[in-house]
């Protein structure tokens, strides 16, 4: 097994584990205000792994890698703002 194949397997396992974590929060009704931030951070990690290793943008010029990373950062940050901003 080559190094890159092993890395991809690890990435897949991490993605599956983070998905199980997210589902567990919802299924067991553990989701609470602070945990939403944790959930959004793990979602960012999952997205980052897909961008870098599945889309294979890690070895491409930064500007092309930055576009989806910025998209993910802005979207998840604004979701956090919508969730945490006090409602009048």
């Amino acid at each position, binding site marked *: 097994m080559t190094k*890159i*194949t092993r890395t*991809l397997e690890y*990435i*897949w396992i991490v*993605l*599956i584990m983070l*998905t*199980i974590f*997210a*589902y567990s*929060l*919802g*299924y067991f009704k553990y*989701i609470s205000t602070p945990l*939403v931030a944790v*959930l*959004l951070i793990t*979602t960012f990690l*999952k*997205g980052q792994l*897909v*961008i870098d*290793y*599945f*889309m*294979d*943008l890690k*070895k*491409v*010029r*930064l500007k*092309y890698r930055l*576009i*989806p990373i910025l*998209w*993910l950062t*802005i*979207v*998840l940050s*604004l*979701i956090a703002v*919508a*969730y945490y*901003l006090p*409602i009048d």
Partner: protein
Amino acid sequence: MSKSISLKEAYPPGDLAIWVIIYVEFITFALLFLGYAFSRRLDVELFNASQLAVNQTSGFVNTIILITSSYFVVKAVHSIKNMTADTLQESNKEASKWLLFAILCGLAFVTIKIIEFSHIFGMGINLSTNRFFMFYIMLTVFHFLHVILGSGILFLIYKKTKINGYLPNDSKGIETGASYWHMVDLLWIVLFPLVYIIR
């Protein structure tokens, strides 16, 4: 004085046109995601109550399926990229195997989604039921259509591998399809916690 040499590739994998499409999809889905998130603020109780009708388990299983299919597509791309003149048949055969697994995952996703939709629509829910279901239907049906299109693209690539259509140093076509499929995966990775989990 030594000059630093960039080892980074100049362009992302696949045809540059697919990346323009991907960026447009990012903007479209971002608007829908944020529309959902900020509309939720207007009536949190309604969103939380309506969300109970949505099956978290099918969302979870579909996330696992899409991530796994993306992994299979990466394996297929690697088979083609690592091809030499001597391994042309082997590499195409291996890529077709991984693509078939990915297509089956796509079909599994579609099947689960159809069951979920039939349950939701069977309850008489539609776009005008309330704001939660308007966003839920728009987001998930729009994404569902992308999965169908992505599966179709993977099938075309699969057919090409079956006739040993990919040659050494000819991975652009498969990379183009793969990039689209990974985008579909990435969008679902954001959609799943937003619509199914966060309350």
